[in-house]
């Protein structure tokens, strides 16, 4: 801990007795914000606007069809959600999906790949990088169809398993949440890998070298040197991964449509199903708001993790 005391600067320095000077200062600030104004306006219009509208809809019983006028119903939609076993099922599946595919899958695999690539030859590095990033570049819906054909009963994976004389699988039907989690890992690992590659290359070689001189073995070096030094990157990566995974829709929709039954219905799929298939826009948006809350909770945890000092 540093012992230097920093005195806070005075909040505003008054030009003695000059009203005009103050106004000029305000004007200066006004113009200084001009460059970010378009971005702010866009955010307000296309982010805050829809979110506000969504928040309003969540308190109404609006339907897509079969209803002349909608009315305000207060907390009814939320009350309904917490009594709806399908909603609770979707929450559990969302947590499973996020934990499995984002936190365990993408994050760990990304770190592992980045670590291995650091030591690999240039050729291996560029080939691996290119392959992994390809999966990231492919649009979500295309990835969804690719993986659908991969996991399908008569798909690529079973052809390979057959050829190896191994028993075949039908995960899209028997373990759909696992199949979509694998799909999400396949698609999202590149992002983690890139973040960790950047973070690892920032670690000064002297630090790990001196640890080596002090007799720390590989695992100890990773645990005491590498991981603490890239802790902030881990936090950032986890946060971005988690938030992205929480809102995955297209991939799951293309692969399983949330089925069979409800076995892969995560919150975004549940929300779509309620709002558009069942025409319950009000209830669907209430679920969307709850999804937002789940995302916010995760972010809080990660922000907390990042703020702590080493």
């Amino acid at each position: 801990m540093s012992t230097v005391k920093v005195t806070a600067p005075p909040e505003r320095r008054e030009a003695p007795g000059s009203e005009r000077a103050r106004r000029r200062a305000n004007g200066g600030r006004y113009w200084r914000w001009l460059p970010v104004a378009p971005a702010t306006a866009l955010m307000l219009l296309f982010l805050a606007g829809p979110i506000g509208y969504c928040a309003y809809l969540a308190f109404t019983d609006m339907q897509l069809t079969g209803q002349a006028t909608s009315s305000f119903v207060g907390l009814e939609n939320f009350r309904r959600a917490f009594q709806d076993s399908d909603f609770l099922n979707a929450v559990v599946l969302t947590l499973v999906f996020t934990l499995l595919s984002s936190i365990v899958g993408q994050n760990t695999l990304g770190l592992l790949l980045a670590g291995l690539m650091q030591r690999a030859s240039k050729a291996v590095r560029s080939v691996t990088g290119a392959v992994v990033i390809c999966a990231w570049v492919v649009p979500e819906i295309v990835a969804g169809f690719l993986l659908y054909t991969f996991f399908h009963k008569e798909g690529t994976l079973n052809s390979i398993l057959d050829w190896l004389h191994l028993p075949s699988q039908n995960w899209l039907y028997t373990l759909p949440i696992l199949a979509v989690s694998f799909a999400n890992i396949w698609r999202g690992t590149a992002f983690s890998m890139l973040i960790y590659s950047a973070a690892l290359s920032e670690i000064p070689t002297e630090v790990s070298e001196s640890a080596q001189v002090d007799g720390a073995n590989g695992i100890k070096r990773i645990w005491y040197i590498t991981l603490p030094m890239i802790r902030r990157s881990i936090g950032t990566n986890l946060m971005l991964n988690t938030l992205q995974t929480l809102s995955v829709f297209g991939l799951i929709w293309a692969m399983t449509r949330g089925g069979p039954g409800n076995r892969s219905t995560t919150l975004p799929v549940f929300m779509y199903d309620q709002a558009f298939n069942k025409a319950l826009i009000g209830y669907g948006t209430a679920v969307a708001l709850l999804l937002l809350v789940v995302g916010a909770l995760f972010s809080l945890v990660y922000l907390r993790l990042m703020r702590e000092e080493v």
Partner: protein
Amino acid sequence: MAEEVLLVRAIVPLTLTVAAALAVGTLTGCGTTDDPDVIEVAFQKDTNNQVTVREDYVEYVAKQFEKAYPGKEVKPVPIQASQDDYYTKIQVMMRSPNTAPDVVYEDSFLIRSDIEAGYLQPLDRYLEDWDDWSEYQDAAKEATQGPNGGTYGVPDGTDTRGLWYNKKIFEKAGLPTDWKPRTWDDVLKTARTIKKRVPEVIPFNVFTGKAAGEAAAMQGFEMLLYGTEDPLYDKQREKWIIGSEGFEDSLRFVESVYSEKLGPPVSEALSPNIQTQVPTEYLPEGKLAIALDGSFLSQQWLKTGGKPWPEWSETMGVTPMPTQHGAAPGKVSMSGGWAWSIPEHSGNPDLAWKLIETMQTPKNAREWYLRGSQISVRDDVSEDPEYQKSLPRTEFFTDLVDVSHYRPALPVYPQVSTAITEAMEQVTTGDSSPREAAAAYDKQVRSITDGAVTKR
């Protein structure tokens, strides 16, 4: 802190101005297609690209229309989606004047719901001056009426449902080719025999689950339920029936089909492609022995269809679906159909009506009945010899009209239908027993209808 407040104070007016400018820009930017000379026609396009039956027909009519009204243009808006997604899409489109088409193809089961939502225009002012309207049968007219008696669509045919079966597979299995099942058990027994004797084919398809949507609810479930003692809705008391034995028995039938592996593999049965797969793949390729399906199935096997199959009329037999225990009248059918409507937000309703009129000249109406394997709802076309002798199965399916049931024509029906498909999916996957699935349905229907239910 004070600094921040100050900044916010500076930002707000600026952003508001920019936001307002942007908003105006976007609104005027996305141009509406309300060109007075262009009629947009929205309809469903099959998920299988080979199937273009409806598109071809719209284009066929569009050509005549453009010739009759020089300078006007018909713009087809085919929506390639499964049926449920199609319904959602047109509802979303019709909500806004910016995206509403001028003519829309409405499923009769959804039309009440969309009328209630204010998406459609009453057509009475046009129908009054249209002589052909008197040719339409009353049942068809009622199907497109709103609660206040106005008419919101012109039906372009109706349909009935029954059992299609492949005579060649029946021969192979040593079964008589003039199949006449009397009860549900007869149907299941036949399917079991086929499974045993011709193991390489799928014995029996009953649509099920959420992905097949209304096809599962109507072709599958209601064809069973209306053969029991318990319908879906009690008309006299105006209440939905829950807790009925018939409902559970119907689910048990679906469960038997899928747990005994008499149906397609469950993962196929629950996929949204199944509805296309049955007529364009399973049946013509001889992979499926019996299909509980609609009269319109043969549209795919005509020259204009997605899978032309000239031999279909010799290979495929038809027989009515029996009631549960053979109770009178001994057979069940359900009827539906589609209609052409004009959305409330159509920018050009008068010209849109002219297009509907063109579609429904006796000749064009007949053309669709033939191409779409529809049952005529117009007396003039029904008497037309060319219509009568056109399709080998028309007589059979037309006769079923007498015993045919209609779905409850109420705005909440589409939601009830979704609840049915969920119950079906639960028993198809084996996640729930028929009793549990029926109980879950009861609970849902109670909530959907605000308690307008009656227990059997």
